[in-house]
């Protein structure tokens, strides 16, 4: 048993380690890497894993479960409330229109109305896992299309709950005995009872979240054992999932709810950082098993049918999404990203289809086919986005590079700013006010359009792409400013620039002290922490408001910054002395401790003896007779 487990773990992990870097190198994103890895180790190519891929998939669905728990955690009610129009509006338009269209098509093909409706609902879902991962990797979560995508996905994720509640009603006319070994509380009951059970379970999760889990976590936190907290976090997720499975519901939804309930508790960030690594690995596993579960014999037997289904469904979904995007006034480029990003069928379709099959709404063969279509459509998404990135966007909508005027000479600016968010824009405005022209790289098409209108020289696209850097004049420029919001993308940019354009001076925006350490390790000299100057400036004003003279306060601030930067460079070197690997959050705490101790030893604001006459007066008093 354990042998098999080790063997499987070996294959899956190896597939991830081999294919994800390859995909990344080819700029295809990690999701496609996992999927391809899965296809290749799957039964139809190398055959390292056989049909049990499906069982693994059940296990790996846990990645999806954890992802939804995390999404739930991020959904503070106030946040949700602020986005309510976007979520309810865009989400409902997309879901209802897609369902109706697919329902109509399936009726036309010859499905029964129950089956057609069930399929419509399942196929209307998009993949939160793929889309969120891709958006994050590309640093697009904050663009308009990123926000709309999140809203639609969220609406779908929530809608799964009522859909699961509704499905038994569709099966009311055809209740069959469930398959052996699948005994849950739901099976074998009439539809209305199943619906009631479901609502009861949802209520249970909400109530226990409020009144059981939070007090329990407080108790655990008081014990001050890190592992125990991680264990408790996993226990909550697995426990909720088990209860949901027991009543025959989707565990993903249960944990999503649990996440929402816990979003308001004080443990939110702690839970997030504990679950995150597990989620990452399991989600990767999930993508691999999706790849491995694609039934190629099905495709070979009915190639036309499958291709037609995949294309048809993607086209219907894309069409609806494009219109939805238009309704919520996305600009063309953003809409294209939104449309192609969400055009696949998502992981919830697996859950829904197996439930639909269990309810005997759809026969086994069709279910298999639908699952195959789902998996294929998920595999196609990264390819579609890649095509969009490379071939469509550069040709239509916002151009990668501004058309040169016929007689215009391409002037290379001395400064390149990568990333024109709140940080880069302030910088760019300052430089412009002083007559320094900068070339800007940004990947938000709306912003690019605006900046071009304002007369900036802007390149649209991923700043870590070498060809874009080249055409932006990285060979001739003197300074490159990495001002991108995501530290990881900044690292990547710094790394590439150092290798390919060694003559460029690189100046980097760092989000935090840890981020700065990372950059020091990479050999960057000019590091600017967002968190430093502003907080010290605020601190100076605090001193002033408390009655300290402005000049003294200002000098104290100047000295503190000087001291802090020196301390940063020093501590960065010692950071590798520790032989234990510490998780991010704990490292932060340890860092704070180190800093506070240091501050106590060296008073960072001690200075200006010469302006204090105390020293002279005291000395004079000591040896008064001499003077």
């Amino acid at each position, binding site marked *: 048993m354990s042998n098999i487990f080790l063997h499987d773990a070996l294959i899956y992990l190896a597939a991830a380690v081999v294919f994800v870097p390859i995909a990344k190198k080819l700029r295809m994103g990690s999701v496609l890497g996992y999927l391809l890895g899965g296809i290749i180790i799957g039964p139809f190519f190398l055959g390292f894993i056989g049909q049990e891929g499906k069982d693994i998939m059940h296990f790996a669905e846990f990645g999806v479960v954890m992802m939804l728990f995390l999404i739930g955690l991020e959904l503070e009610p106030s946040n949700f409330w602020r986005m309510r129009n976007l979520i309810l509006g865009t989400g409902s338009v997309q879901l209802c229109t897609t369902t109706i269209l697919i329902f109509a098509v399936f009726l036309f093909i010859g499905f029964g109305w129950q089956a057609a409706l069930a399929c419509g609902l399942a196929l209307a879902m998009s993949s939160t896992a793929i889309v969120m991962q891709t958006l994050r990797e590309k640093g697009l979560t904050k663009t308009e299309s990123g926000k709309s995508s999140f809203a639609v996905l969220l609406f779908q994720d929530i809608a799964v709950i009522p859909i699961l509640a509704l499905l038994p009603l569709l099966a009311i006319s055809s209740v069959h005995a469930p398959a052996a070994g699948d005994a849950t509380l739901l099976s074998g009951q009439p539809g209305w009872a199943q619906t009631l059970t479901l609502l009861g379970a949802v209520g249970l999760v909400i109530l226990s979240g409020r009144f059981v889990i939070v007090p329990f976590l407080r108790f655990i936190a008081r014990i001050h054992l890190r592992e125990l907290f991680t264990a408790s976090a996993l226990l909550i997720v697995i426990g909720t999932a088990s209860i949901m499975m027991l009543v025959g519901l989707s565990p993903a939804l249960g944990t999503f709810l649990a996440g929402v309930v816990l979003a308001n508790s004080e443990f939110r960030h702690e839970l997030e950082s504990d679950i995150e690594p597990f989620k990452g690995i399991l989600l990767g596993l999930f993508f691999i098993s999706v790849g491995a579960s694609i039934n190629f014999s099905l495709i070979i037997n009915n190639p036309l049918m499958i291709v037609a289904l995949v294309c048809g469904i993607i086209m219907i979904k894309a069409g609806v999404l494009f219109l939805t995007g238009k309704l919520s006034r996305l600009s063309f480029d953003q809409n294209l990203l939104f449309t192609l990003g969400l055009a696949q069928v998502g992981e919830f379709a697996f859950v829904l289809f197996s439930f639909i099959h269990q309810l005997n709404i759809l026969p086994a063969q069709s279910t298999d086919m639908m699952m195959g279509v789902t998996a294929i459509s998920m595999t196609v998404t990264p390819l579609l986005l890649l095509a969009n990135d490379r071939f469509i966007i550069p040709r239509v909508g916002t151009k990668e590079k501004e058309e040169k005027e016929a007689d215009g000479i391409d002037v290379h600016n001395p400064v390149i700013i990568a990333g024109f968010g709140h940080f880069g824009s302030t910088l760019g405005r300052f430089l412009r006010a002083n007559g320094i022209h900068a070339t800007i790289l940004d990947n938000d098409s709306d912003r690019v359009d605006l900046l071009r209108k304002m007369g900036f020289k802007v390149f649209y696209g991923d700043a870590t792409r070498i060809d874009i850097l080249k055409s932006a004049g990285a060979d001739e420029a003197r300074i490159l400013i990495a001002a991108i919001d995501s530290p990881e993308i900044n690292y990547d940019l710094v790394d590439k620039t150092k290798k390919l354009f060694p003559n460029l001076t690189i100046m980097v925006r760092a989000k935090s002290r840890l981020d700065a350490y990372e950059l020091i390790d990479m050999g960057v000299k000019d590091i600017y922490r967002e968190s430093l100057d502003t907080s010290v400036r605020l601190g100076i004003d605090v001193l002033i408001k408390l009655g300290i003279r402005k000049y003294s306060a200002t*000098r104290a601030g*100047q*000295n503190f910054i*000087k001291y802090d930067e020196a301390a940063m460079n020093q501590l960065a070197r010692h950071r590798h002395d520790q032989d234990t690997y510490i998780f991010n959050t704990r490292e932060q705490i340890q860092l704070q401790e180190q800093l506070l101790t240091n501050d106590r030893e060296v008073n960072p604001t001690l*200075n*200006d*003896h*010469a*302006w204090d006459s105390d*020293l*002279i007066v005291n*000395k004079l008093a000591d*040896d008064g007779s*001499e003077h």
Partner: protein
Amino acid sequence: MNKILILFAHPRFEKSKTNRALLKNIGKRQGVTLNDLYEQYPDFNIDVNREKGLLVAHQIIIWHHPIYMYSAPALLKQWIDLVLEYGWAHGKDGDFLKNKIIFNAITAGGTREVYARGGYNRYTIREFLLPFEQTATLCKMIYLPPFAVQGTHLLTSEALNQYVVFYHTLLDRLVTGDFDVDAMKKTEFLNDWLLSKTELAKP
């Protein structure tokens, strides 16, 4: 061989034709260190320990600055206030600068004639520089007469070149030790001492 530290203070160096000419390639000269204060401390936050280290490492110090409103630019005053600490530069145990040579190298828009009793500015340059002289004396240093480039508003480029040669000759002689403090102290400006001791032409 002596080492010279030029403490240069000019808030608009890039606009000062005279000072750019005087200081061109100065840091490359043997034995001369240029400490460009406005470049080093744009926020007026002087690193006192760094400055003390520099002072200790040099035997001859020059306060090189333009005359603004009959005195030096603000950062040089800030430097004097902060670096020349009691107990280090003066007062009890304040002997770190004892017997070092110091003087002002100044540029001024007005000619020597307007800085005179009956002139427009009513007092001489030496009189306006008295606070510097007394500061040097307090720090037990040897204060020499100033080197001055005056009438900069109307300076021809030939005359400016002449001043540059003067300044560089002065630095060379200070570095090599080819000077006599007592003879220098007898002149009103180091320019005069240079004229009497060399074959240089008067600008």
